[in-house]
C-alpha cells in the first residue's frame, strides 16, 4: 500500500511545540468580556490591532481602493486577470516606498528587487530554497520565532544551528557566539550557507545596534555566507534608539551585496496577516530571478495588491499611520511594563515588537525547563493567560516568557493585568516591592493606584473601543 511522503507524515510542521499547545488551550476556552469572562486571554498572538480605526477611516475616504465599490469596480477585470509574477508595478513601488519611509528614508529600495510571497512564512521558505540545498544549514540566534523550525526546514531539508544568546549579554548576538555556532556546524559536518537574524527581534522586542549589525555583516562577509534579515517588525519600533536596517549598514561596511537578503511582510507593521503580503528583497540578481519564479507558489492576490498599492501610495496616510502606530504601541507597552513592575515582574528592556520578554525566573521552583513548563501550565490553567514559554523559542535559559500586548482591547488588558496581580499576590508576596506593601489593604491600594495610572497613559480621547473584543473571529462561525 503506497504511503505518503515522509514530509507529510513526520513532525516537521512543528505543531507539536508548546507554542501551539497554548493556542489550543485558548481555543477551547477563549475569553470574552461578557460571554466568557473566565476564559483564557490570548497573549500568545503577536498581532497589531491598535491602528484599525485609522485604516477604516482611510478606507471610507478611498472607496476606489476596493474593487467592490462603484468607484473600484471598473478595475475589476484587469485586476482579476493580472497574474504576472513580477507583481503590479504600483504595488511594488508602494511597498518600496513604505519600506524606505520606515527606515527614515535613509535608504532607498528598488521596486524591481521586490518579490512577492505567501506572507513572511512563504518568504522564509522561498529564501531557504534559493540559498541552501537539503542537508545544508542556516545559523539562527536564540531565542527565535518557533515558526522558523517549520518555515526554513520542513519541506526544504535545510538544518538550523542555534547561535546561543544569553541574558548576561541581554540576549545580544556576539562574535564569539556566532563563531561557536559556526564551529559546531562544521563539527557536525553541516555546510553553513547563511545566518538569519530577526531585527527587531521576535521574541525579545529589542533592536540591534549599529555596532552589532556591523559585526554581523563583517562575520558573514568573512565566512562568505548569506545574511537574511527578517525585518517584519521594522515599523513597530516605538521609541529611541531608532531602528537600523541591514540595508543601511551595508552602505557603511565593505561587503559582498550578493550575500544580503531581507524578508518583509505587512502582517505585523500594518496588522494585515489575513492579506498574506510577504516580500523577499534581495541584493543578489540571481536570487531575485529565481525567487520571482518560485513566487508562483504564493503570489499576493491581485485584489490585495490593488488595495495595498492605493493605500501605501498615499503619502499622508503613510506618514500618519507610522506615527500613530508608534504612539499607540509606546503607550500600550509603557503601561503594560509599568503595571507588571508594580508587582515585581520585570522584562527585558525593549523598544519594539508587539510583545515583551517577561522574566519569571524568580517564580521557577528550580532552574530547569521542566519547572518552566510547570509554571507555564499554571499560567494557562490557573491564571488563564496564554503566554509563550521561552523553551518554545529555543531559549537557552529557563524562566523567560513572551507576552503579547498589542492584540487586545484596553479592557481585556486590564483583566489580564488583574489576573497577574492576583496570582503574584497569592503565590509570591516576597517579590512585591516593600514600599507598596501594606498587607491589610494591599490588593485594594494596588488596584486603585493602577487604575488611576491607566488614565494617565490614555489619551484624552481614550482608546476604549465601543466594540467588544471577540475571542474568536466571527468569520469562523459559518453562516450556512
Amino acid at each position, binding site marked *: *500500500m*503506497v504511503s*505518503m*511522503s515522509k*514530509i*507529510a*507524515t513526520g513532525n516537521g510542521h512543528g*505543531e507539536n511545540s508548546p507554542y501551539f499547545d497554548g493556542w489550543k488551550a485558548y481555543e477551547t476556552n477563549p475569553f470574552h468580556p461578557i460571554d466568557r469572562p473566565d476564559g483564557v486571554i490570548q497573549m500568545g498572538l503577536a498581532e497589531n*490591532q491598535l491602528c*484599525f480605526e485609522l*485604516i*477604516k477611516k482611510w*478606507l471610507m475616504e478611498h472607496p476606489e481602493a476596493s474593487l*467592490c465599490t*462603484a468607484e473600484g*469596480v471598473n478595475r*475589476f477585470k484587469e485586476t*482579476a*486577470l*493580472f497574474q504576472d509574477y513580477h507583481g503590479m508595478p504600483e504595488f511594488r513601488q508602494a511597498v518600496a516606498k513604505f519600506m524606505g519611509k520606515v527606515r527614515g528614508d535613509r535608504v532607498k529600495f528598488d521596486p524591481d528587487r521586490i518579490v512577492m510571497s*505567501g*506572507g513572511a*512564512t*512563504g518568504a522564509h*521558505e522561498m529564501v531557504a*530554497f*534559493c*540559498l*541552501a*540545498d537539503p542537508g545544508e544549514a542556516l545559523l539562527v540566534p536564540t531565542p527565535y520565532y518557533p515558526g522558523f523550525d*517549520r518555515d526554513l526546514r520542513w*519541506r526544504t531539508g535545510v538544518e538550523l544551528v542555534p547561535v546561543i544568546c544569553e541574558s548576561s549579554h541581554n540576549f545580544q548576538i556576539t562574535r564569539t557566539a556566532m563563531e561557536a555556532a559556526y564551529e559546531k556546524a562544521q563539527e557536525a559536518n553541516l555546510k553553513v550557507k547563511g545566518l538569519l537574524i530577526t531585527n527587531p527581534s521576535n521574541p525579545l522586542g529589542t533592536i540591534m545596534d549599529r555596532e552589532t549589525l556591523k559585526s554581523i555583516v563583517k562575520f558573514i562577509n568573512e565566512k562568505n555566507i548569506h545574511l537574511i534579515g527578517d525585518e517584519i517588525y521594522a515599523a513597530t519600533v516605538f521609541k529611541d534608539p531608532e531602528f537600523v536596517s541591514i540595508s543601511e549598514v551595508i552602505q557603511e561596511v565593505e561587503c559582498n551585496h*550578493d*550575500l544580503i537578503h531581507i524578508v518583509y511582510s505587512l*502582517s505585523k507593521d500594518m*496588522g494585515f*496577516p*489575513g*492579506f*498574506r503580503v510577504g516580500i523577499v528583497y534581495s541584493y*543578489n540578481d*540571481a536570487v531575485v530571478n*529565481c525567487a520571482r*519564479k*518560485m513566487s*508562483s*507558489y*504564493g*503570489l499576493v*492576490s491581485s*485584489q*490585495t495588491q490593488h488595495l495595498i498599492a492605493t493605500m501605501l501610495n498615499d503619502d499622508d496616510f503613510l506618514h500618519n499611520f507610522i506615527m500613530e502606530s508608534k504612539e499607540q504601541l509606546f503607550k500600550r507597552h509603557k503601561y503594560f511594563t509599568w503595571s507588571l513592575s508594580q508587582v515585581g515582574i520585570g522584562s527585558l528592556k525593549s523598544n519594539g515588537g508587539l510583545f515583551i520578554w517577561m522574566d519569571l525566573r524568580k517564580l521557577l521552583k528550580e532552574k530547569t525547563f521542566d519547572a518552566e513548563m510547570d509554571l507555564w501550565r499554571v499560567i494557562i490553567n490557573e491564571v488563564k493567560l496564554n503566554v509563550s514559554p521561552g523553551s518554545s523559542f529555543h531559549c537557552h535559559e529557563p524562566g523567560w516568557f513572551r507576552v503579547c500586548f498589542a492584540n487586545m482591547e484596553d479592557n481585556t488588558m486590564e483583566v489580564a493585568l488583574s489576573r497577574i496581580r492576583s496570582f503574584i499576590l497569592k503565590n509570591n508576596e516576597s517579590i512585591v516591592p516593600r514600599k507598596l506593601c501594606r498587607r491589610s489593604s494591599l490588593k485594594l491600594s494596588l488596584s486603585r493606584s493602577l487604575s488611576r495610572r491607566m488614565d494617565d497613559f490614555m489619551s484624552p480621547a481614550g482608546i476604549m473601543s465601543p466594540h467588544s473584543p*471577540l475571542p474568536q*473571529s*466571527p*468569520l*469562523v462561525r*459559518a*453562516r*450556512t
Partner: protein
Amino acid sequence: MGLLSRKVTCNSHGQDSSYFLGWQEYEKNPYHEVNNPQGIIQMGLAENQLSFDLPESWLAKNADAAGFKRDGQSIFKELALFQDYHGLPAFKKALVDFMAEIRGNKVTFDPNHIVLTAGATSANETLMFCLAEQGDAFLLPTPYYPGFDRDLKWRTGVEIVPIQCTSSNRFQITAPALEEAYQQAQRKNLRVKGVLVTNPSNPLGTTMRRDELDLLINFITDKEIHLISDEIYSGTVFSSPGFVSIMEVLKDRSLEQTPVWERVHIVYSLSKDLGLPGFRVGAIYSNDPIVVAAATKMSSFGLVSSQTQYLLSAMLSDKKFTKEYMAKNHKRLQKQQSKLVSGLEKAGIGCLESNAGLFCWVDMRHLLSSNTFEAEMELWKRIVYDVKLNISPGSSCHCSEPGWFRVCFANISEDTLKLAMQRLKSFVDSVAINNQSHQELKNSRKKFRTKWVFRLSFQSFHDREQDER
C-alpha cells in the same frame, strides 16, 4: 559557484521552454486593434475573458456584501486579522457547493475535506510534497500542461514519467500505455506514487470518457497508487458529452468504503472556470483526512487572501449568479470555439473535436516540411514571427507526435479571432502557392528546358514578395 542552491542554477523551473519563449515574443510586440494592428496576437494564453460583464454587474449590485462590510458593518478588521489556514468556512462551503453544481450535483463535497491554496500551481506542488519525494515519480498522460514540469518537479525532486497518448485514438489513455509508463519508471529506478490526469484536458480540450476513468481506477487499484485529477477546467465544458468527474465514477461503482477512495484527490481553481487568475484561488480536495491535514499545514506557505475569500464567498453563495454565469459562459465559449474551428477549416486546418477548455488542439501536421520536431519548431517560428500569432507547439506539451499546436480562443474578442484566422489562411495559401510553384518548377525542368530561365525569374519574384510581408 556553490553559494546558491542547485534549484537556482538548474533549469527545472522550465522557463526556457518554447511555451514561455512565445510569450516573451508576444510581450515585445503585442497586438492592439488601434495602437499596434500588426502586432502578435496572443493565442497561447488559456484565459477566459468572455464573461467579465457578469461578475462586474454582480459586483455593481452587491458591492457592500462583497467588500469590507457585512450587514452594513465594517468587518475590515476581522478580515485583515483572519489568517486561519483552515480557511473562511463560508467560502469553503460556497466553493464546494459550486464544485457540486458544476458536476450536476451528482456528487457532493465536504467542506472539511477542502484545502485552500494560492492557485492550482500551489495545489499541485503541495500534493506532490504530501504524496511523494525524491526518487518517486508520477505518471502523466501526454500531451500535458508545460507548467507541470515546474509545479510537480522543481522543488519537490519528484519525477514525471509520460504515458504516451497518440492521435490514433484521439489521445485517449490506454491500458498498454499506462503499463508501459509504469514499466519505464521501474527501469529508471523510480518508485511510482501515482497518476495525474487533467480532466477536462489541457491542451486537448476534451473531457475523459467513463471507460477511460474506469481504466484509471482499475489501474491505481491494482498498483495501489494515488490518482490526482486536475479538474480546473470542469466548469468550461460547453457541449456534449458532459463532464464526468472521477468522484462520480467512484460513487457509481460504490467504492466509497474501499482503500482506493482515499487515494483519489482533486485539484481545483477559479482561474479558468471563473476567469479570475489574479486572485490566486486554488484548492485540494482529498478523501484522505491525513492528506487534508498535511496539506492544510502546508498551505501556510500560500494561503488565499482573506479579502479575496470573502468577496468570492459572497459571489459563489449567490446561486442565481452561479447558475446564470455557467449558462451564459458555456454558450459564449461554444460560440467562440466554433468560430475558431470554422476559421481553421477555411484554412484547410483540422483540429481534435473538443467540448471543453479555452483552446483547441490543432492539427498542422500537413504543414510540416518533415515529420520531425525540428520541422515543428520551424513551423512554429514562422507562425510566431511571420504570421504573428503566438500559439503553443505540441512539443512544449510533450506530445509524442510533431505537428500539433494548442490555440487559445477565449482570451480574445471575436474580431481579433477573425483577424487571426485571416492571417492564418493567408499563410497557408502562400505555403500552398509556394509548394505548387516548386512542384511546377520540378515539372518544368523535366519538360521545358528552354523556358527554364523564365520560370526561375518568375519564382524568385514570388520569393521576394513573401520576404517583404
